């Protein structure tokens, strides 16, 4: 049965849908099970033992339906509100934390209500309202999504929520956290992004612990601002609260992948929910105001040895803002420097960060750095390249001219740079 579609036809004429109990005759053997899926000439059934197995169906083999699909009932449990608990809104945006197994792989599609089913104990510390606004993996997040999240957050905080927890894919959570940090210029309560490195379809998922710690932080702290709360170590009893502008995913898979860079985490939360602050927090504004305009023609480039200006000319000359992750203290080659000079001459804002990430720039140390400054490249100290990228988009859209944008880039808005770096900072 090589021609595609033949198996589909066979299943169709037998009246077999996904979920049907079927009897499959292959050669002289007969197999019974629930039809899970099919593709090409392979049919996957769940056998009585619970195992899935794929069988190759050839000419002469046959399928018979012997039972109808069991109707799946998705019951969401009733969650009662309790007097005296703070109101927290949980905004769902997709990602691993909001994904479920579907056809053998993980896809976004779990509703945020699901979190209340898997972590019902959050209802002991807060009245949690769930609001789903997006359902994407975080690599598909874009500037418009950031705006949508910022506006939803603004609305919820202004409608009386004590805090907002945003479940988000971990890959670009740092970018969204930075975007919200700048957009929510006035903020009346804690906004926490959280996610999971290990999906919720396994008993060992880090999602329940991360959500619980996030809700606890929102429910019990007056720390207005945008934060990321994730595992602090590989143990399920220790969580770190990072500033939205200083946090980076530093490991592809470990649950303690998120680290504060060039600063200590704002706070630590232990398994019992005890919060220990390690850094200052901002006083809350009366109301929340979202300034969501962003300039999309901004580029984030990592410099590398031998980078060919010819390859990048069009990109750079078409950008209104460029963030460069230079080497070391903030360097690029002479060839690239002259291309950036041309872009600046045309009105672009070019910002320097370091691909070392740890440590500040030092563009007065070597001639290269001094030359780059002369050209008009703006160094932003120890700001993360991604944060600088997001900030530049915001600065260009929220200023009347490039000079003001440049001034904004050099003004600390949301803890995105430090003026000192202490030895207790892990790197």
């Amino acid at each position, binding site marked *: 049965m090589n021609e595609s579609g033949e198996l589909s036809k066979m299943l169709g004429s037998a009246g077999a849908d996904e979920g049907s109990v079927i009897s499959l005759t292959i050669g002289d053997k007969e197999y019974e099970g629930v039809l899970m899926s099919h593709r090409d000439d392979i049919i996957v059934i769940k*056998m009585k033992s619970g*195992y899935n*197995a*794929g069988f190759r169906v050839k000419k002469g083999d046959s399928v018979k339906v012997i039972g109808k699909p069991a109707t*799946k009932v998705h019951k969401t449990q009733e969650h009662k509100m309790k007097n005296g608990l703070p109101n927290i809104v949980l905004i769902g945006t997709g990602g691993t934390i909001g994904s479920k197994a579907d056809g053998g792989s993980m896809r976004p599609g779990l509703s945020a209500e699901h979190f209340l089913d898997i972590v019902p104990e959050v209802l002991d510390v807060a009245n949690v309202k769930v609001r789903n606004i997006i359902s994407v993996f975080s690599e598909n997040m874009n500037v418009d999504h950031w705006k949508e999240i910022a506006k939803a957050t603004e609305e919820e905080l202004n409608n009386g929520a004590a805090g907002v927890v945003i479940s988000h894919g971990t890959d670009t959570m740092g970018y969204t956290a930075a975007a919200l940090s700048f957009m929510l210029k006035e903020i009346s309560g804690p906004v926490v992004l959280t996610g999971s490195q290990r999906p919720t379809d*396994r*008993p060992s998922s880090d999602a329940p612990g991360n959500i619980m710690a996030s809700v606890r932080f929102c429910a019990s702290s007056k720390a207005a601002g945008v934060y990321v709360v994730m595992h602090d170590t590989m143990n*399920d009893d220790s969580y770190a609260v990072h500033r939205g502008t200083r946090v980076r995913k530093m490991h592809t898979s470990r649950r303690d992948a998120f680290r504060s860079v060039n600063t200590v985490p704002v706070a630590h939360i232990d398994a019992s929910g005890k919060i220990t602050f390690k850094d200052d927090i901002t006083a809350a504004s009366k109301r929340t105001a979202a300034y969501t305009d962003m300039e999309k023609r901004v580029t984030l480039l990592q410099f590398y040895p031998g980078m060919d200006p010819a390859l990048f000319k069009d990109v750079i000359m078409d950008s209104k803002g460029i963030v460069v992750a230079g080497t070391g203290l903030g360097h690029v080659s002479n060839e690239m420097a002259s291309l950036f000079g041309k872009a600046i001459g045309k009105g672009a804002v070019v910002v320097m960060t370091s691909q070392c990430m740890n440590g500040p720039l030092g563009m007065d140390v070597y001639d290269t750095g001094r030359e780059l400054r002369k050209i008009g490249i703006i160094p932003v100290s120890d700001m993360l390249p991604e944060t600088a990228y997001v900030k530049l988009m915001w600065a260009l859209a929220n200023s009347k001219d490039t000079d003001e944008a440049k001034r904004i880039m050099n003004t600390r808005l949301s803890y995105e740079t430090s003026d000192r770096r202490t030895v207790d900072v892990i790197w």
Partner: protein
Amino acid sequence: MSSGDRFICGIEIHQQLNTKKLFCSCESELSEESTDTYFRRLRPTAGESGLTDHAALIESKKQRGFRYQSPARVSCLVELDEEPPGNVNPDALDIALTFAAMVNAKIIDEIHFMRKIIVDGSGPGGYQRTAMVAVDGYIEISGKRITIQSVCLEEDSARKIEEKDGEVTYRLDRLSIPLIEIATGPDIRTPEEAMEVALRIGTMLRATKKVKRGIGTIREDINISLPGGPRTEIKGAQELRLLPMYVENEVQRHIMLTEIKKILSSRNVSADGKLEDVTAVFKDCQSKVIRGALSENGKVMAVRLQGFAGVLNGGDGKLRLGAEMAQRARTKGVKGIFHSDELPAYGIEQDIVNKIREHLKMKEQDAFVLCAEKENVCITALEAAVERAKEALTGVPEETRDPQPDGTSRYMRPLPGAARMYPETDVPPIMITSDRLERIYSNLPELPEETEKRLISKYGLNDQQARQIVREGNEDLFEKIAKDRSMVSIAATTFLGTFTEMEREGTNIGAISEGSVLEVFDSLKGSKFAKEALPSLFREIAKGVSLNDAVKKLGIGAVDESEAIRIIAGIVKEREKFVREKGTASAGPLMGPVMEALRGKLDGKRMNELLAAEIKRILD
């Protein structure tokens, strides 16, 4: 199943494979290294309905969590569930496919790994990865066909290191060592047959030459039911020779429970009595257990079991529901419980028994069970015991049981319900190509019976010898030694006689590594000692003594011939009168003292020759 069947039994065999781990490149070895631990919580996953089972959630909340040691040489982030699994180890899959082909099973075209949800912490992910590789095969045991329902490839569980204050620590060395799981059909009908089937499957597994050997590398689960009755499972038996005992004892237990059910159903029975505090009754009781509990602010609590008299311990010791209830109670942290069928005893006098009966308003056919401990412990323990008493009304409870070294088994946990199997989304399905199948089928290993034939024709062993060598898995080792033809008969004697004898004495043969057997034979060839020294040498080596140390300890370093002559001459000289009287016939009686002095240091035949020569010298 025919009407004459006494019971129905099927077994599952789990065999570790001698490859790297199933989903990463870690070595499949155990480690004695204790490391820092990582703390984890597990919670039951929402099923496909998206809903988490409430009871399971409550259960998981009770768990304080698990700690994992991750020795770096034998485990990595994959075992710790901090990195997705890599590709399925192709060698391990090949071995499973090979075994499937050897038992004539139908190999699945596209293999899907599943997660079997187990939240007892034995897997940091909260599940065991397992895939069905083949179905519907068979083997033959003395002409009878035993079906092989399935051949699965799965990962071994983590090793429990300690349990303290409700927190279990596991080591990840054993986790993800590849296992083949072979499940037979319910075709076994006698206790001996269970062992025969396990032996045959074990021998066939070893024939692949790619399975691990030694203690703990092969484990058996035994499923048993009476015809038409409920099933129990004895999980993780390691000693093959005990299988018939496990089967027989479990069958007897099923028969006993069925009998108890019959008795109870003819009575007016209830196990819904209230737990009552009877501490006051015990104020003058001298029982050590009771005194001990009361001195630590404990209580004595009791509960009436209406209509249960005589089945807790009765029928001349044949009815033993009390023991079953005590096992359940012990899982809740008490040392034991007392019940009315065994009292008065243990320092609890008749008048106390009478007072309890009065307090609980018991009638003739009623029984009671009591426990002395802290109040909350008493309550959970007695509730578990009463729960077990209730189950007696329906006969045999379906449960998983823990095999004991004496051939009995103990309650472990209820049998898992419908297997909770979810697709393993981190491991893509594996298509078994026709090229792969061709390679597997054209490279099938020699079957045990073929190996036997070869041993017979090549080394002149008889049928029985060849069968025993293969059955015990010694064929490779035997052939390595027998390469030197002068060693054939000594090797055969060692494997067939010496080792069997040692095992009968209780020596752990498994502790003698292949390497040390080869070392012993190499030294023997180098005339470091005589072949007579082998049994005592192996006894020492089994205790963990090195070959060199054993030789020294036993004083069996070979003597050179002039030294031997000097010793023999001395012995003869001492008995010169006797020698002169008996002449050459004195050689027989004198061999005793000579052997005494030179055993293991000189070949026996040579001893004989030297003795004869010395006697001749004196007589001349």
